[in-house]
Structure formats: C-alpha cells, structure tokens
C-alpha cells in the first residue's frame, strides 16, 4: 500500500476546500465567488496571485471578508449579507453593468456550490427537487455565470447527507447549464472535468483512489500525478 493510506482519514472542511480553490486560481484572473462555501475563497488567495474578485451585485475588486471592526454594511458580496473589504482600485457598478461584464466574458472563473456535477460539465444548483416547476427555485446569478464565464469550478460535499454520490453520470436535478464545469473540489477529492471524463487529481488525507471511486456515481479516472491535497 502507498504511504498515504497510513494517514488517518480526514475529509476536508469548508475552509480547506476554499483554500484548495484559491490554489487553483491563476495569476491575474478575474474571479466570481458564489454564495455559500465559495465566498470564503477571497480569504485564501496570496497577494502575488493578483486576483480581481467580482460580485454579481457590482463590486469589482474586493478582498477578504470584513472583520467586525472594518465592516461596512454597504459593501457586501454575492451573499448579500456578507461584508467584504475593498482593495485599492476597486470600483462599483449597477446590477445590469455587473452582468454585462459577466456576459461579455471578462470573468475567468466562477466558483459555485452545487448539488450534482456530471462528466459533460453540466451541473445542478438551483432546485432541490425535480418537480418540473420552472417557476420555483433559487437561480440567482448562477445561470448567467455558468453560461458566460470561461470556466466553472464547483465546490461541494462529495456525497449527500444520506451517502448518495454528487458526482454522477447524468444530473437528475434540473441543470443550471448543460456544460462549463472544469474542476470540482469536494470534501474528499479534487476532480478535473475534461473531455466528458472525471479525473481524480488530489485526494483528502487518508483516502485512496478506490475509496473515493466507491463514493462517486460515474467512472473516475486517476491522474498519473495523483497527490494528497496541499492543505
């Protein structure tokens, strides 16, 4: 057995998943962070990455989440209730201009939470049940972001609360977009999505590829460079 199986099993917590997402952002990228786990990502980037974070509500160039002493209730991120700091050079636009820059393709990656992801890059995150109702759900900006950003990174638990896989052959919930996901960070793994395949690139401490595969609802290839997560 390889050395990593000797390490105790430790699923990643929300902060660690956000830290992994931060590691995967390229220098100078324009990055959008969705509500939920992704909004923590701005706490974990390094200054030399020179990331520009944008938020659907028109805040361009924000930084980490605001501490209590520096909170300005008028400076919030996509969560609408989470105060963030402004970086030098920040700007603010109205909602339509904010989505104009998204639709125009200026955003390199959007990091979103999801319920399901499939190998074709489709994902589901706006309805918790397949009731056929197009009038009920929480879309927010996810469909615009998924349709127009260069890449979609998804962050989610590896399985549902009752142990069902969230990485699936085909989404059973209504999709947010029929394609676009290129990377999934879960509580157990970092999985690349390319050419209609899931490729395991990183594993949580103590987990083997076989164990992760058993909790995955679609074929999972293993990268020759498979490594333990760096958090």
């Amino acid at each position: 057995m390889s050395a990593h199986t000797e390490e105790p099993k430790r699923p990643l917590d929300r902060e660690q998943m956000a830290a992994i997402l931060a590691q995967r952002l390229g220098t100078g990228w324009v990055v959008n962070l969705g509500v939920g786990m992704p909004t923590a990502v701005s706490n974990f980037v390094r200054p030399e990455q020179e990331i520009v974070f944008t938020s659907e509500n028109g805040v361009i160039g924000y930084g980490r989440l605001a501490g209590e002493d520096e909170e300005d209730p008028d400076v919030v991120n996509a969560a609408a209730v989470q105060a963030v700091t402004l970086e030098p050079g920040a700007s603010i636009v109205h909602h339509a201009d904010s989505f104009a820059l998204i639709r125009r393709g200026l955003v390199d990656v959007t990091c979103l939470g999801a319920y399901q992801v499939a190998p074709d890059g489709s994902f589901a995150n706006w309805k918790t049940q397949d009731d056929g109702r197009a009038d009920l759900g929480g879309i927010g900006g996810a469909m615009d972001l998924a349709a127009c950003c260069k890449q979609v990174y998804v962050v989610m638990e590896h399985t549902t609360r009752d142990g069902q896989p969230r990485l699936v052959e085909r989404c059973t919930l209504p999709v947010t977009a029929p394609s676009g996901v290129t990377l999934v960070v879960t509580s157990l793994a970092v999985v690349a999505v390319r050419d209609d395949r899931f490729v395991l690139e990183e594993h949580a401490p103590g987990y083997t590829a076989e164990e992760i595969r058993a909790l995955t609802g679609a074929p999972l290839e293993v990268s020759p460079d498979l490594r333990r997560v760096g958090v």
Partner: protein
Amino acid sequence: MPRPQILPTFEDALADLRDGMSVMIGGFGAGSPINLLTALWHRDVRDLTLITNGVGFPSPNPDLKAIADLIQDGRVRKIVASFTAATRPSRPGAAEELIRTGQVEAELVPQGTLAERIRAGGAGIPAFYTPTGAGTLLAEGREVREFNGRPHLLEHALTADVAILHAWKADEAGNLVFRRASRNYNPIMAMAADMTIVEVEQPILPAGALDPDHVHTPGLYVHRLVHIPVGGVLRIHRSTGTPLLQTETPEVTPQPVRPEPRP
C-alpha cells in the same frame, strides 16, 4: 429643470398607489427601501406584481416589513425574481408555499437576465437575446435563436408602474447618488418605472450641490423623494439584524478604501 416632489412621509409618497399595480423594489442586501416597503405593507394595496431580486424572508423585526411579508400577507398576485424558493430544502418559506400551491404566480428569472430586462425596459428596447438559460428547464417552450454558433433565448423588457428605491444622496432636481453596493438594481429600476419613488439617507441637497459628473441617476427619472426622518431606518446590520436608525446628525460618511494590502 423639472423638479420631483419632496414629500415629508413615506405614506404621502405612496398615497396614490392602487390595487393591481406593478412595483419594482430595489436592493440586494444593501440598498433596500425598508421604510417604503414598510409603508407599502401598511398601505394595504392588493394584487401587486413585484419585480425584485428575490422573495427573501419575512422581517424579524415586527416594526419593519420585507418583501416576503407582502407576499405572505396577501398583497401580491405575481412576483418576478431570481429567487422564488430557498436553495436549502430545510428552509422553505411561507411565500414559497403560496407559489407552490398556485396562490401567488411566479416568474423565475436568472439574475443577469432580470437586470438586463429591467435595463432594457428603461432604455426603450423591447427584447433581446441572451445565452443565459439555454439548455435548461427555463428554455422549454421559449424562442431560441443561434448566434455565433450558440443558442440564445429571447427575453422581453420589464417596466413597472412604480419603483421604490433607496439612495444615499439626492438633490432638489432629483439627481441620485448611491453608496457602494447599495447601488445594485436601484439605478436601472429608476429608469424602468413610470413613477420612481426614492427614500434618501442624507438631507435633500439644493440643486447644484451634486457634481454632475458624480450623479448616478439623473433627476429626469425621479418623481418623488422622501428624506429618511430621524428614527427612520438607514440599513439593517446584516449579522445582528439590528436596524441602524437615522439620527439628528447623519453619521454616515463614506469610509476610505483600505489603503494597505491584505496580509
């Protein structure tokens, strides 16, 4: 220059609202017209069509009202929004249940499409195509057209009888300035409504006191202004839920952008 009405109370500003009107409501966390929303609830007009970011949750403070209160308390016939149901199944709201059972009609719209439909309404553009939503449940039964090899959905502009908005500063000409992310939907809704009603944090300035280069919404689009009086709500502190109230000496001053780099 045409001058907007400057009214002493929120009730006065909403006095001629009638049953069946369509109302755009600004705000996205910050920038919500909490005082006007509360006055609208007390006004007790019915069969409203609301156009706003989301259904949200009822106000935890009994003295204040939120969009979900208007829906739950029977004032709303239809809502057009980017959130009509909670994204967590553990947190369904009463408003969501009214939609599910057909007592309130809902049109669920992706947020960027919602913003652009409002912008188009204010810009005199009847419809446009967008790639958002193509290949999803929202595209079913819709007009789809291919541009640059990608499917796009036809979307129609939105306008409204009334917009209720929140601004930081205004002058007697109706020019508006919004503070930070409280801008959000407010400027585009001002342009898309026949009657734009704005609650304003700072005392209404004389015309000429705002630098024309710094105006976000020209006064031509603004019909009624109410300066939030002492005791009125400026904003809700989001982590504690406590309202920050207007005092005799307005203490809201823009904080400088943090000059130091993050650690």
